[in-house]
């Protein structure tokens, strides 16, 4: 291969049980460039970089760093090779200061009275401050992690890498948790790092960011390397097509909507988090039968809290919610289910399912107390089984041992199918979908999109919450854009362009 590559991956293959995550991937990364890895969820980007960072070892292939073949057996070995990684979930000690987090594991020491070893916090603070200054990271070394926001925590992770003298910096989906301003700030930092001679690898599925900062971009699809492109000379559309592996058609053939009566009305809803901070502020909207009302927004702007409040999992601090003319503001979760709310939650494994139960029990999780599943407090196992068999057939849920399969052992796609089946079968007038396709592959995504549309056409009111703008643009009849807990704009989908929605998502009030 050509010279000048700081990292080379040659014929890398990585298998997990039942899946080939990376299939014979070869690529080279130049010193001092911003190299992006683009691909959908499950394309294998994170897996590939986890191998560079020593979290897994490849089944086949070689990794060369600075012209030398390396077996990167652990993250600490990667650190020795001056490779650093910022993960999606930050690894920070919440009750430690920023400086303490940064020095953890390689503490500067001094000796008390020339004898007893102790951590030299003064020097830690100074070094942290100096590094922060140099790269414009703007952090205060003495503040505790639990007191600073997500964006600052991310910058602490960057500082941790720099403190360990990382030259190759891997960012795994760094903007997913950030507000638009924070994204701007981060991208500026990343450019600064490159200008200082660092090599940056950016894992993302957002084309716009790549366009803004990356020099080159590798496109992965279903574990295979599709192409490596020079970013400034390639159009966004080309990249999008390559990423998805076919012509991207943003205008999904969606039959026209027929709106009926109002099903859900939310008035002046305010929701507070545990610390009493309002995360949803004075929000009002309504959904009619036969309508998909989608809430667009950057993660963490209050959209999930709206869904939880409507479903009854989070109490409303003020405001009212009316379902089919009935005030449900103070109703219990069970009552709301009975009145007609289905809910596909964001976190399918820890909320939507009981992983230790079998499929039959999980499919009856919302109906077990009703006849025929339960009569006078006594359960009827035959009803569970019959219902389970019926849903497995109708919704094509695949599992090793049918209704007796432990849900834990099922694939993510089939787990989601089970939840969707259970919730759709409730035949509720209102259905809430939160991130219904997160982490699924294209086939499963299309399947779920079809089901959402089918339910709409049966006259259900649908509340869709998604972080994927494409999903919202292709499904929604009405779009509400949320920013910092407020619905800044509510308008029929055909009157908004992707660009306008993006503007509102960033908190710009006038489009």
């Amino acid at each position, binding site marked *: 291969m050509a010279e000048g590559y700081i990292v080379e991956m040659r014929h890398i293959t990585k298998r997990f049980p039942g899946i080939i995550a990376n299939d014979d991937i070869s690529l080279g990364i130049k010193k001092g460039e911003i190299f992006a890895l683009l691909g959908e969820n499950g394309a294998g980007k994170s897996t590939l970089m986890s191998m560079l960072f020593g979290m897994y070892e490849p089944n086949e292939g070689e990794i060369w760093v600075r012209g030398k073949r390396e077996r990167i057996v652990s*993250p600490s070995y990667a650190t020795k090779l001056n490779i650093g990684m910022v993960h999606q979930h930050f690894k920070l*000690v919440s009750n430690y200061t920023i400086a*303490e987090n940064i020095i*953890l594991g390689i503490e500067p020491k001094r000796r008390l009275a020339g004898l007893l070893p*102790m951590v030299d916090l003064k020097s830690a603070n100074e070094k942290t401050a100096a590094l922060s200054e140099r790269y414009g990271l703007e952090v205060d070394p003495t503040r505790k992690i639990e007191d600073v926001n997500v964006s600052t925590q991310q910058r602490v992770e960057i500082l941790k890498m720099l403190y360990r003298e990382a030259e190759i910096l891997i960012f795994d989906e760094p903007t997913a948790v950030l507000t638009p301003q924070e994204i701007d700030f981060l991208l500026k930092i990343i450019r600064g790092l490159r200008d200082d001679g660092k090599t940056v690898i950016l894992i993302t599925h957002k084309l716009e960011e790549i366009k803004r900062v990356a020099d080159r971009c590798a496109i992965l699809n279903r574990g295979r390397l599709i192409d490596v492109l020079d970013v400034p000379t390639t159009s966004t559309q080309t990249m999008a097509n390559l990423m998805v592996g076919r012509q991207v058609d943003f205008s999904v053939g969606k039959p026209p909507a027929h709106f009926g009566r109002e099903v859900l009305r939310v008035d002046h809803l305010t929701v507070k988090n545990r610390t009493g901070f309002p995360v949803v502020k004075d929000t009002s909207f309504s959904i009619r039968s036969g309508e998909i009302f989608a809430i667009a927004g950057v993660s963490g702007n209050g959209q999930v809290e709206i869904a939880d409040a409507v479903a009854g999992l989070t109490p409303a601090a003020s405001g009212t919610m009316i379902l089919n003319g009935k005030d449900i503001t103070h109703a219990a979760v069970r009552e709301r289910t009975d009145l007609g709310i289905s809910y596909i939650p964001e976190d399918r494994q820890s909320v939507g399912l009981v992983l230790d139960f079998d499929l039959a029990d999980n499919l009856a999780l919302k109906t077990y107390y009703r006849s025929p599943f339960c009569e006078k407090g006594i359960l009827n196992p035959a009803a569970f089984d019959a219902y389970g068999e019926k849903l497995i057939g109708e919704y094509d849920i695949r599992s090793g041992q049918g209704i007796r399969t432990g849900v834990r052992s099922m694939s993510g796609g089939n787990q989601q199918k089970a939840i969707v089946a259970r919730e759709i079968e409730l035949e509720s007038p209102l259905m809430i979908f939160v991130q219904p396709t997160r982490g699924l592959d294209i086939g499963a995504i299309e399947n779920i999109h079809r089901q959402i549309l089918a339910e709409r056409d049966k006259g259900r009111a649908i509340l869709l919450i998604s972080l994927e703008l494409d999903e919202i643009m292709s499904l929604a009849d009405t779009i509400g854009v949320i920013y910092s807990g407020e619905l800044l704009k509510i308008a029929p989908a055909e009157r908004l362009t992707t660009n306008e929605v993006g503007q509102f998502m960033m908190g710009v009030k006038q489009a």
Partner: protein
Amino acid sequence: MTILTTAIIDGLSFALPLFIMAIGGIYSERSGVTNLAIEGLQGMGAFVGALAVTLLAGVFPAGSQAPMYLAMLFAMLGGMVYSLVHAVLCVKFRADQVISGVVINILAMALTTFLTSQINATVLGAPSNKFVLGTSNRFSIPGLSGIPVLGAVFTNLYPFELIIVAVAFIAWYVLYRTPFGMHLRACGDNPHAVDAAGVEVSLVRFRAIMISGALSGLGGICFAYSISAQFSPGIYMGYGYLAIAGLIFGNWQILPTLGACLIFGFARSGGFALTQVMGLKAAFSDLFMILPYLITLLLLVFFSKSNHPPRALGEIYDKGKR
């Protein structure tokens, strides 16, 4: 000696062994491992210490204080070795930490009771369920002990009280000032961060639990000397659980825990003193022993918001889980 002086002296000699066991608990729990095993660890430690003294009884001249220091050393060793069971179960075998603690207590009581009787019968040829320890000498610090009222703090001290204070200071220093202590406390908050920093979480936790065992053993043998001057199954009075109450009361921090243990100690000795002064039956002292537990419970009710157990306490750390 006035009643007040006695209360202070007794309160202190009860509070300090409790404190050192609680510090052990803090080490374990701040590293993220629930430790309900303190009761068993202190009993096992006291057993090993007492056994060493009994077996070596002929070596030292009568009245020598050396066996006591030897007992402390062996008690720490015994507690440490026995704590490996908890460490292996919790860290390596991924057992539930509460269950492990309970089982270790049951096993400690069974094992030490059996061994004490069996060794007395077969090795020493005298059927008995206890090992008799010598009495510890006591001393007063000249000058300081002459101060009115407060002088009681420096009067009639057991030597172990000074040792405990010294060990406690070292334990404080290690926990809050050294890299090891920093790793340990980080393990209890976010073990993933520690792992990412290249430090082996299971190793830190292993060491933390072993320290916990050693300190519990020390506490146990001190109780054996101060309360009954012997080792018998009566050592399992539940003081290990009281130490846990102390560290919860002290919010998993060493200095506040000292305060909690002192309160507990003085509540107990004050109770005894009060029953004496008021001429009440001895049974009333039991009512005073309720206080430490009741106060801790009420504290949890009224200040549950400001009581912060380590964030990762009780979680099994799975390296592969991201």
